[in-house]
């Protein structure tokens, strides 16, 4: 059967984006086979490797499950309930995105060393990553036709039945997408599990670099994370199902908020139980460090320069990532062929890799192919693109899926070619979603450390590298102002994200 092939003008940049995303895979394969296939088997066929993979999978599963529960509950509270202050809460629930996991972990472990271990890692990673579930679910919830719920109630279903049988199934796509990001993120995290001394798989990868000085070993082990990522991506697309398109085109009505009644105190309790440890606690710790640093030697101009560099890099990363993610997201949303799926999934495979592996793989590619920009700004931005492409691809795909394909057909019939339609119809309609994707990349870049550290132009300091510089010599007080600036300024895109999903 013949199919309409998407325009080359989309396929070529999408293929380029996909190629960029799998750069680390090239490096991993090259380095893994460096010492022969036997070495690969020996490295993988160890009990410790299996133990640590299981540790990581267990952590990832626990954090993802908790994030889904907290994320869905928080989204439902702020979108569908009549809770007073829910608009404020909507923004507040997104704020943990502004707290880097290593900083959150550090805040806890330096306060109560006993939290170290599995529970500490679960605590910290859940608190910083549940917004990945909450934001898309809140957006999907506010798009749902509340008429459906009314109908279901009138057919004799209780609120709970409506939630379980009607609402949740329709949120499946957004939950799956958010859960995938959380699961991959947890697999790739090193900062939090290192501080929490929970022996995750990334330990041996970092160990292979830091303690074993054996990049080949690190590459072989990191390949396991690529395989895990592939499994998760495939699992997600089956869990995603077909995106349930809204039937009927009437403007979505705002549903009648659900009366919480006697459950109201419970809702506030829940909000406090999430926000106190996720937002208030790290802020309190940071402010403590800052007030302690009155005596410390921190130049205001250093903080200002680091902030400016951070914002500049984040803006460049967001722009470049969106530009590359756009064709991939559009193809994933619109093309019925396998190509769109392949491109989209390829952007996720490196997402479970810890930052150091991505960084070293860009060193590998940089010195071989991109020598003129090696250790220059463009290569660093490329590194961010590799790291964060899935965040933007997901946002673009999601928002393009919301735009009815019929509008594009009509535009075609009015004489526009596919690229003109993309520019005049699809892109403007998807703009809010694209903006949200850009904000997400911006925010995540602000917090990024390992790739920044390895690839930054010599002399460039960001808030994150400054934080590292001071905390690595256990200088909490000097780190305080940088931590404060980072969290405060990252809170701005986080709040914007919450507004965009309203």
């Amino acid at each position: 059967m013949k199919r309409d092939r998407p325009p080359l003008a989309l396929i070529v940049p999408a293929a380029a984006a996909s190629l960029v995303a799998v750069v680390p895979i090239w490096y991993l394969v090259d380095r893994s086979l460096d010492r022969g296939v036997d070495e690969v088997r020996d490295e993988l066929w160890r009990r410790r490797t299996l133990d640590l993979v299981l540790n990581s999978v267990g952590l990832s599963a626990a954090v993802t499950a908790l994030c889904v529960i907290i994320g869905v509950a928080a989204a439902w509270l702020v979108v569908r309930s009549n809770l007073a202050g829910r608009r404020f809460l909507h923004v507040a629930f997104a704020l943990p995105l502004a707290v880097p996991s290593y900083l959150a972990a550090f805040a806890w472990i330096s306060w109560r060393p006993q939290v170290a271990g599995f529970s500490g890692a679960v605590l910290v990673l859940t608190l910083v990553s549940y917004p990945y579930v909450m934001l898309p679910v809140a957006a999907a919830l506010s798009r749902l036709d509340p008429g459906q719920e009314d109908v279901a109630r009138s057919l004799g279903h209780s609120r709970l039945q409506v939630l379980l049988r009607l609402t949740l199934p329709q949120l499946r796509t957004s939950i799956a997408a958010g859960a995938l990001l959380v699961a991959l993120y947890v697999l790739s995290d090193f900062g939090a599990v290192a501080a929490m001394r929970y022996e995750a798989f990334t330990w041996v990868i970092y160990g292979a670099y830091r303690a074993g000085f054996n990049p080949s070993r690190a590459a072989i082990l990191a390949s396991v994370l690529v395989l895990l990522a592939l499994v998760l991506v495939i699992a997600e697309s089956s869990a995603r199902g077909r995106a349930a398109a809204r039937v009927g085109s009437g403007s979505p009505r705002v549903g009648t908020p659900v009366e919480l009644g006697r459950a109201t105190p419970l809702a506030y309790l829940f909000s406090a139980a999430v926000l106190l440890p996720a937002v208030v606690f790290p802020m309190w710790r940071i402010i403590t460090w800052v007030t302690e640093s009155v005596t410390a030697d921190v130049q205001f101009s250093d903080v200002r320069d680091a902030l400016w560099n951070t914002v500049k890099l984040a803006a460049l990363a967001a722009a470049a990532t969106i530009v590359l993610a756009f064709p991939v997201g559009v193809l994933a949303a619109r093309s019925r062929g396998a190509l769109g799926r392949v491109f989209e999934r390829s952007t996720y495979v490196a997402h479970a890799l810890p930052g150091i592996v991505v960084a070293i793989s860009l060193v590998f590619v940089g010195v071989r192919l991109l020598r003129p920009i090696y250790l220059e700004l463009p290569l660093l931005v490329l590194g961010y693109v590799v790291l964060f492409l899935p965040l933007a691809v997901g946002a673009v795909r999601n928002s393009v899926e919301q735009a009815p394909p019929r509008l594009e057909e009509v535009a075609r019939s009015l004489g526009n070619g596919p690229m003109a339609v993309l520019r005049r119809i699809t892109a403007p309609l998807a703009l809010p979603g694209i903006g949200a994707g850009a904000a997400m990349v911006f925010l995540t870049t602000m917090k990024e450390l390992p790739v920044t550290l390895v690839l930054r132009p010599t002399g460039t300091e960001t808030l994150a590298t400054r934080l590292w510089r001071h905390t690595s010599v256990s200088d909490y007080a000097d780190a305080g102002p940088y931590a404060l600036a980072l969290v405060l300024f990252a809170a701005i895109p986080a709040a914007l994200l919450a507004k965009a999903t309203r």
Partner: protein
Amino acid sequence: MSGDPVLEVRGVHKAFGAREVLHGIDLDVAAGEIVAVLGPSGCGKTTLLRLIAGFERLDAGSIAVNGIEVAGSQHCVPPERRQVGVVPQEGALFPHLDVARNIGYGLHKGPEATARVHEMLELVGLAGRGEQRPNELSGGQQQRVALARALAPRPSLVLLDEPFSSLDAAMRAQVRDEVFDVLRTAGATAILVTHDQQEALSVADRVAVMLDGRIAQFGDPDVLYERPTSLEVARFVGDAVLLPGTLTGDAATCSLGELALRGDHPPSGPVVLVVRPEQFELHGHPTATDIAGLVVGRSFFGHDGTVRVALDDGTMIVCRTHAGRLPQRGERVGVRVGSPVLAFPATP
């Protein structure tokens, strides 16, 4: 038929996976003509329309617009180069553009475009509403904007896909009349896809009845009604009471006695007779020899009405009669067929 054919569809086949939805469609539309494609949902009529617009590729056959082939088994002209306008269900106005920009979407920017947009706004009776947003318009107004948008670039052909189905019944007739007045005023050639036989019969010059992926019959509305070429068309176009009977020579016998036939009819043997509700004549106080039954249902429409009669042998019929002569429920009535009926071979 007048003028040269604007659209020629020849032997078009289309399958989705293993399921073939169009099995060899032929359809001609002449310049200035309005053709309705009428069929039940799932018959393939929307697929045909999407093939003509260029949104889907055909598997076999060809489609030509103004004598130029736009789709064949080997090539496919993209929608933007076909000069075929589309008015989809619910209008599908671009939500991020105002009314004037919606209408001007297919025009090259310039003073002519501005003039054309004004002209179209006038034509659809929305002068001065150009700066409104689609969501500020009523459903009927949205449809008119969608039509103006499709007509603005002066397409060779306009395709309307169930354009009134989302409107409520009270508005539907009015919007429909407005839309087709506009189409006629513009001298446009158009295809209307609909499942509403009343809509098709009332607005189209010709109607193509589409059943199960085939054009069952294509002709003037009155011919379709009076002389359907198959039982399926007879059943789909207009109401019909179907009675089993036996045909001998030029007459047929059934539970209503011996009835005269019109049109071509099959050779002697078992047949199905098609009686239109208005062909029945009812009278009170039937005698013992009359065919009679009991009135079991009654619908009053103002100028006329229908009654459902259970004949003594158990056959159920629907009769249409003048409002003044509607019998009451429970009344016994005699039934006669006042004019020749249609006969089709009985399918075993």
